[in-house]
């Protein structure tokens, strides 16, 4: 056993589409089951009706029997001698025995599409096809034969009738006067037609001249119109200058309008955002407040329930509640929100005043930013003064 044999063996089983994949390492160790299956498959390739079953190898006797049968079948069918002892070893040596049989199958398969057998095959094919052609032609001819016979007999019966007709035609006479007259009239007709045509031909020249004249006239007219058109085009109405001026102004105004509109919409957006956030804050505040009040109320009730002295009548409690409510009312009150809204409005108004030109708006923004930063730095500085010695003094 050699590496090459194992490799070729695997390759052949793949090409022959052996139903399971062989590994190159399959025969490094004895594997009787596999050898038996292979053997059965190979034998059945040669002799499909062989009664060989690779499942029947449980006992030693079965195995020996199986190998014997297989070897015998191979010898009978394909004159391949196998060494049963080596096959029984079921390792690399078995591969050596199986290889010749497999090789026959492999060569058959690999040679099939090749051109070696091609020419012969085409020759045979050609011969066959020519023979087939001959048969077809013969068949056709045989079917034509009665038809031709019938036709022939029909034709033979015809000449008598034809000769009769011929005679009748020859005996008929023509009146001479009539013939002459008809000829004359046709000659006259043709003469008149010829005259008419020559007349028309003569008139062509004059028609042509007429048409030329017409073309000339139209051309002149066209030129005149062209000139007039040019004149009209070059004419510039008085109001044009004014119109252009206005147009320019409109353009400028429109640009200003667009700018303003953009600024306005931006600011409106900012305003909306601000209002929205304010509202949100308000709601949250309100909610918190409500919770707090609720809590306080609950506590109070609890306190009541647990037992305030009889001295505490309802009236002061109500008072207290009212006072609480008052506070609640104050806290949620519109004053705060209105203030902030006012602030926002102020801002916007200020911005609008300033914002006619983009540049200015930016400056304004910067200013706002700066203010903001300054505020921060101031507080920052205070902080540092509090806890560290460095900083603000210089």
């Amino acid at each position, binding site marked *: 056993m050699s*590496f090459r044999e194992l490799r070729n063996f695997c390759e052949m089983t793949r090409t022959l589409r052996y139903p399971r994949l062989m*590994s190159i390492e399959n025969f490094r160790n004895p594997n009787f089951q596999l050898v038996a299956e292979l053997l059965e498959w190979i034998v059945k390739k040669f002799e499909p009706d062989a009664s060989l079953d690779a499942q029947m190898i449980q006992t030693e006797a079965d195995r020996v029997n199986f190998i014997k049968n297989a070897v015998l079948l191979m010898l009978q069918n394909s004159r391949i001698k196998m060494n049963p002892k080596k096959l029984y070893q079921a390792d690399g040596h078995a591969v050596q025995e199986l290889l010749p049989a497999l090789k026959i199958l492999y060569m058959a398969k690999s040679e099939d599409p090749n051109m070696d057998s091609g020419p012969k095959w085409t020759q045979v094919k050609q011969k066959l096809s020519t023979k087939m052609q001959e048969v077809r032609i013969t068949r056709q001819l045989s079917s034509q034969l009665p038809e031709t016979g019938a036709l022939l007999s029909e034709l033979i019966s015809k000449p008598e009738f034809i000769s009769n007709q011929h005679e009748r035609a020859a005996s008929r006479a023509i009146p001479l006067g009539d013939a002459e007259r008809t000829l004359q009239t046709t000659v006259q007709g043709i003469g008149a037609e010829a005259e008419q045509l020559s007349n028309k031909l003569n008139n062509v020249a004059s028609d042509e001249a007429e048409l030329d004249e017409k073309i000339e006239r139209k051309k002149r007219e066209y030129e005149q119109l062209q000139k007039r058109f040019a004149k009209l085009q070059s004419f510039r109405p008085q109001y044009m200058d004014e119109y252009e001026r206005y147009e320019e102004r409109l353009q400028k105004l429109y640009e200003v309008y667009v700018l303003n509109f953009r600024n306005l919409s931006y600011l409106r957006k900012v305003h909306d955002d601000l209002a929205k956030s304010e509202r949100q804050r308000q709601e949250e505040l309100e909610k918190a407040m409500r919770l707090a009040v609720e809590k306080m109320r609950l506590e109070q009730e609890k306190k009541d329930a647990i037992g305030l002295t009889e001295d505490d009548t309802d009236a002061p409690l109500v008072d207290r509640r009212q006072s609480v409510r008052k506070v609640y009312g104050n806290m949620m009150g519109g004053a705060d929100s209105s203030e902030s809204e006012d602030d926002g409005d102020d801002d916007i108004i200020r911005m609008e005043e300033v914002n006619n030109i983009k540049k200015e708006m930016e400056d304004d923004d910067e200013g706002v930013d700066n203010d903001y930063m300054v505020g921060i730095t101031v507080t920052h500085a205070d902080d540092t003064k509090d806890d560290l*010695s*460095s900083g603000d003094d210089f």
Partner: protein
Amino acid sequence: MKLKLSASRKTRHTEMVCGVGWIGTESILSAADDHLFLLTNTATNESQQILSMQESFYPTSLHIFPRAQNKGGQNDVFAVSTSDGKVNILSRSGKMEKIVDAHNGAALCARWNSDGTGLLTCGEDGFVKMWSRSGMLRSVLAQFATAVYCVAWDSTSSNVLYCNADQCYIKSLKMQVAPLKWKAHDGIILCCDWNPTAALIVTGGEDLKFKVWDGFGQILFNSSVHDYPITSVSWNTDGSLFAVGSHNILRLCDKSGWSHSLEKMNSGSVMSMAWSPDGTQLAVGTAAGLVYHAHIVDKRLTYEEFEIVQTQKTVIEVRDVSSEVSKETLETKERISRISILYKYLIVVTSSQIYVYSSKNWNTPTMIEYSEKTVNIIVQCEKVFLVSDGLTITVFTYEGRKLINLNPPGQVMALLDERKIDLANDTLVVRDRADNKILHFFDPTTGKPQGDGNLKHDYDIVELTVNQCGPLNDRSVAFRDHIGAVYIAMVKTFGVSQRMVKIGSLVEQLVFNDVTNMLCGISEGKVAVWPLPNVAFLDRNLLQKSLIQKSVGSVGKFPQLANFAGNTIVIRKSDGCLVPTGILPFYGTLITMASQSKWDQAIRLCRSIGNDTLWATLAGLAVIHKNMIAMEISYAALEDDEKVSLINEIKDKSDKEIRQAMQVVLTGKLGDADVMLERNGHGFRSLMLNIQMFKWKRALELATMNKQWLEIVMGYRERYLKNCGQKETDPQFLKHQAEVEIDWVHIRELIAAERTKGNY
């Protein structure tokens, strides 16, 4: 992209073809079980028998001696392992140079290393042996109980890969360590190959799969199950593709594993494969005895509105998708090996010429004779382009003038790949071939070192890219080292102390934008874009704030960044699909506006978008261009209060030097500012700066040097310590403590005096 197969049927092997190899780029040498060696000319598709061996000669593998080492090319040498355990070193003329008894049983595989100094063999007896060029046994690398079917060298010839049963082993030749071992397949491994430019391994086995691994044995790709065992795999010479052969099947795969194409043949298993030196042709030896010659066609490139397809061996079709009618067919005389298009120029490399087409005029290409070397790499930039075979680099202009011929420094024979060379108009960056930690910069027009010449990093550099826009002073290189950190480094530095800054980590495949200096990389499921990587030298915070991160869903495990043009990033998924994704267009616009000094517009844009990263980008631009107004506005928008107040302070100053120093303070380089102030005679200001920053020692040093203001330093120090609740322990301060008496009124007066003098 797919393979087009053709085979010579007139003269052919009658048995299994076990070894194929290329002699030059035009002929295939094949060895088969019928004891013959055939030489097939790929141009005419005709074969001739060049050698006939004795009856017992059954080859199992063939490997041609690496050509780059072999001057002249006439005396090609190759190693053939045979089934009787011998390894033959033969020359093309049939002369047997050496026969060694290498293995007991069959010798299964023989491989030269990349520079031809070593030969690796393995055999049925389970040995893996290494031999010298002349066939002397150097060492036995491994020994197993069962056969070793395949071996491979890595790109630098410092590691060896071998496979036994279902395990793969990587053994380092440089270090005495136990080999790295992992279970790679469920069946026996039949074939393996190591990428010639990168640490990528492909293996195939009897479990009907092929797998791609990295150099540490981590799996990168696992193929679906085929019908038959994978019998052969092979990387092409630039490591961007590999071919996989099985029974009746030939697959062309991208390096990340997905298939470009699948060819069906009817000639049994593919027993051997070899790529031509230019990496575009494949020789395939099959079990039925046919030697197929395959070349790559349907290579497809897109650039702006052009779509370029190589339809045949010598024909390229150019379609302009913006107009329906314009379609050009370009034809070359010889086989096309490589094409590339960028910056409106199409470069087509054939076996002996380079054609440069301008996209304005497809009819008249510039032709350059270039036949001495194969071309594996083309790198284009706006004005010049380079071609390389992985060993030497040649730079041309688009007019066809050859500028330089460069041998990159370093003596190891490992090939360069496209991620290790990059080119800009004025800089050529290449990684040292011997020492992976060094980058070299060259001027592509003269070949002289550019800028600082080279750069040394602490770790191995894995990939690099150079930005394309701006003048030489802006030129910077982004690179990634093998531990995954991304750095940016200046090519040219004039006395700037900091040359290299880390900008991120775990980001791969760095690509600069084509029109701006934006840098893009890809990390786990995300695309990271640095709009202004250079700002890292000025303000680290801004770099972090301006980083755009965009998560891209479902791109698979190892996505690749295909390109980054304009605002579009194209990612190739691990299954080969192209996924375009975009970033906001405002970053590019902002950078252009800043370069044209349209600050008003830029600020307006930022206001209307109101995005923090955009503001940070603007701040970065303002810092780079030193525009105080824009800087102030953008820092304010980013709520960097202290910076804004500092800028306001700078604005007040009239003295140019002080302004400069303050600007340096703004970028956070206090040391530089301190030195600047002191050198220009603003000692007091420098002193106060140090006090503000609590750099007491430096302040004390300044005070003692100027022999005044000692009281101020001591006063503030004392207050500081008091606020911290600590006591003075520094001997220097203790020494001076006795000399001064701290009187805050006096200190304030002193400061006020300096202020009136304009020193503060």
